[in-house]
């Protein structure tokens, strides 16, 4: 299992942090996995960017997700940058961020229309893995979007599940066997549908299409290397 975080970001400025070095762990991961997106140093030629491999992820030793907005051509890699009470924020090389609780996206920044935060009732199989046959009948989800007030506009939904077929999915060269589960969420003013690929044994959601909001729509999320806890 990979670890993600360290307390090394404290006293960042005193350590002489330069522009763009917003998180040493993320910077290291970007340099390891996405060398083409790293700003070259003086006299240094930019490294050629190739397809990201599992080996690079392993070497980087950092929790990693891959996400693609509807309409985007390519997915983006994001790396764990902070863990605040179980809400883990993943950042891309240009610091667009997704915050996850387990496999559920509870916030997004910089993608176009921010999801400020989200809450769900317990048990939530996206937050705490539950074997697919034991998923609750319903989970209540609430999303907070920007409003001109300290508290955002809240939209709430009742979400129900429908199990699909068992199949295999490959996420960055690693095979996962799981169950497809459709999650239909109905609210007062709108409805949407998430789709999850949950591990057949543990129920851990390795991949899902998740709703980020009425304007942002869906995002395709893959947990390439799940977060397993804060490094001491």
């Amino acid at each position, binding site marked *: 299992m990979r670890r993600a*975080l360290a*307390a090394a*970001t*404290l*006293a*960042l*400025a*005193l350590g002489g*942090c330069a*522009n*763009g070095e*917003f*998180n040493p762990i*993320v910077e290291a991961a970007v340099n390891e996995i996405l060398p083409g997106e790293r700003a070259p140093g003086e006299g240094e030629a930019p490294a050629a960017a190739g397809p990201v491999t599992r080996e690079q992820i392993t070497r980087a030793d950092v929790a990693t997700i891959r996400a693609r907005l*509807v*309409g985007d051509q390519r997915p983006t890699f994001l790396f764990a*940058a*902070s863990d*605040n*009470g179980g809400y883990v*924020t993943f*950042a891309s090389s*240009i*610091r667009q*961020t997704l*915050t996850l609780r387990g496999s559920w996206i*509870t916030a997004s*920044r910089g993608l*176009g*229309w*921010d999801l*400020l*935060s989200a*809450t769900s009732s317990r048990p939530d199989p996206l937050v705490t893995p539950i074997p697919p046959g034991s998923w609750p009948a319903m989970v209540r989800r609430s999303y*907070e979007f*920007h*409003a*001109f*007030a*300290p*508290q*955002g506009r809240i939209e709430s939904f009742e979400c129900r599940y*429908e199990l*699909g*077929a068992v199949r295999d*999915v490959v996420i960055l060269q690693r095979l996962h066997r799981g169950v*497809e589960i*459709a999650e239909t969420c109905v609210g007062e*003013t*709108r*409805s949407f*549908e998430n789709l999850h*690929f949950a591990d057949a044994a543990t129920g851990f959601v390795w*991949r899902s*299409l998740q*709703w980020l909001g*009425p304007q942002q*729509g*869906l995002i*395709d999320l893959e947990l390439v290397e799940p977060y397993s806890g804060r490094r001491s």
Partner: protein
Amino acid sequence: MAGRRGGATVPTLIFAGAVAGFGAPAVGETVRPTLNLYGLTGLIDMPTAQSQPDAQVALSYSYFGETQRRNFSFQILPRITGVVRYSTIENWGQRDDDGVYDPTYDLFDRSFDVQFTLLKEGEWRSWTPAIGLGFRDFLGTGVYSSEYLVATKTIQDFTVTAGIGWGRLSQKNTFENPFCAVSSSACDRDNEFGEGGKLSTSTFFRGQNVGVFGGVEWRTPIDGLNLKVEYSTDDYKREQQSPASDFKPESQVNVGAQYRIREGIEVGGYWMYGSEVGLSVSISGNPLRPLVPPDLGTGPLPVVARAASAPTGTGWAQNRGAIDQLAAALDEILRAEGMQLEGFAADPDGRGVEVAITNLRFQSDPKAIGRTTRVLAAGLPASVETFRITPMQDGLRTSTITIDRSDLEAEVDRPNAGERSWENVEIVGATPALPPGAWYRDAYPDFEWSLVPAPFLTLLTPGDPIRVGLNIDLETTLNLAPGLSLTANISQPALNIPNDPGPSETALPPVRSDQPRYFAGYAPKLPQLTADYLFKLNENTYGRATVGLIERMFGGVGGEVLWKPVDQSWGLGADVNWVAQRDYDSPFGFGYYDYNVVTGHASLYWDTGYYGLEAQVDAGRYLAGDWGGTFSLSRRFPNGWAVGAYFTLTDVTEEDFGEGSFDKGVSISIPFRWTVPFETRANNTVSLTSVSRDGGAQLQVSNALYPIVRNYDRNRLSRNWGSFWQ
């Protein structure tokens, strides 16, 4: 909604990448109603009881017969719509000062409408229609003066409207005005308003008859295409009086089609009054719905809470070298984040810091404060428990926001963090200066400049109703110290510049009526050359001193004081200026007019807290030496949009004031950020004023205090605090 119900095919395809079209349509989303030829929500020439979404703004143009209308409409509040209109009616015909009748005289006319939504559709019972009460041309010359009560009901794809009208809307299909039974004077309606511009309450609901109008609008299966038919009770009799007029109505039935090319852009074509082709075009937008995604770009710095084992030594706070190193590093990071560190002070016990920042990038100040907080959380020693952040604007220290670091760490990334953080922050007026020994940005003198194309739009000028042109503006500022600056602005007229119209005809000193002369010709202009000092007297009191060429038409010396506590919804200000009128053709000359005046006002500012409405009352002496007061009301949106109106009443008589009777106008300010997918603090402001007259004219000061500080009080920070975590 696309999607799946069981089975593996669809999700497999989706995971394979075929996700386009997997939308999340809103249930019950309504289609925005269309505008009529008066710029109001309506049929063709007749109104409906519908209204636009709250805050919707539209510019529209319509033409038929010999009538052109240019309309600016605004959904002031969810139940109140306002329209300002500038019309041209060709071949109106009128006698000149010598009594000679000119049948080809074209009328240029300004008018104002307001419509109230008394009942929204289905609001009382599910079957009840919307009901509206409207006043057309209630503040103008009365050419279109009319009142109406209208009901509208939507039945599937059809919108059916019926209404009754007074004034111009009572010329056809009529019955006797029921108010005549109450009072015989209610049957008399005098639409002569002299110089115009006065509230025409004395004519409301008067006249012999009431007309019955109505129509139907069909939203066709072709997306965006609406067909309309109406019966109009306006006979356009006055328009036909001149022998030169070609407009001969043959029917009261109008038909037309309107097409929404895309959201915000509509065109229409009509067959009007059985004899004329009409057309319309409108563009509209909504402050609450930006044209581009508002949150695209670099997200905020992730916050990592301090580890329990983090060293909490405080020795750094007594180490000058460490403080300087820390401040320099913060300055570098903050600059990359869009802020400029102006000053830094650490408490001697190492438990708190204060930073003074200038927000260079973000439209929302709480967003800049939030991002600054994250930098401090990432960069400051673990001993620091309290962040005090003081935003500066134009060199002025505004408010100080105190944030507890432990609270921040407990709130970040969690649900409802916006509200929780708002409950925990403290906001006070900033002290006049940082504590002694603080680190300051060593950047003075600091020279700033910009060279920008400055397109301009001049509206509502008789004989030249719309003029679009271009100036090239060079703006330079030399900052000598915090708040102390020298400013020189040069404007080079470039395209479609009007010629000098010559001296105006006015009974007063030409303090504004000669304004077109100052914009005429292609010689470079010097709109401003000033020395300014902005400062704080105490936590709640601000001051300004200005000397030089203050505005395009006046130069002199002036000062201003503003008292505005951050916890108070209102503030008081006063300004006094001695100014002389500049020559229109010489940047440094004052001899042509040989006119000077002491002008100044006491001002009350009040943020009502109701839909962002902000009121301002100024009382004092104006540029022409007249005494009086100005009342302004504007709706300010947290994202920088502002739409406002004002009127000024002074001791100048209506006759001396001239056309319009008294000064009034509307203005709209649109943040550039609303139209582009990146952060910027630039705004575009368009003023739709009446003809520039000399009564009630105020000195235009570019750095008046209240606009500088108003965004930093508790009310305004509250409205944008949701972006603190963005």
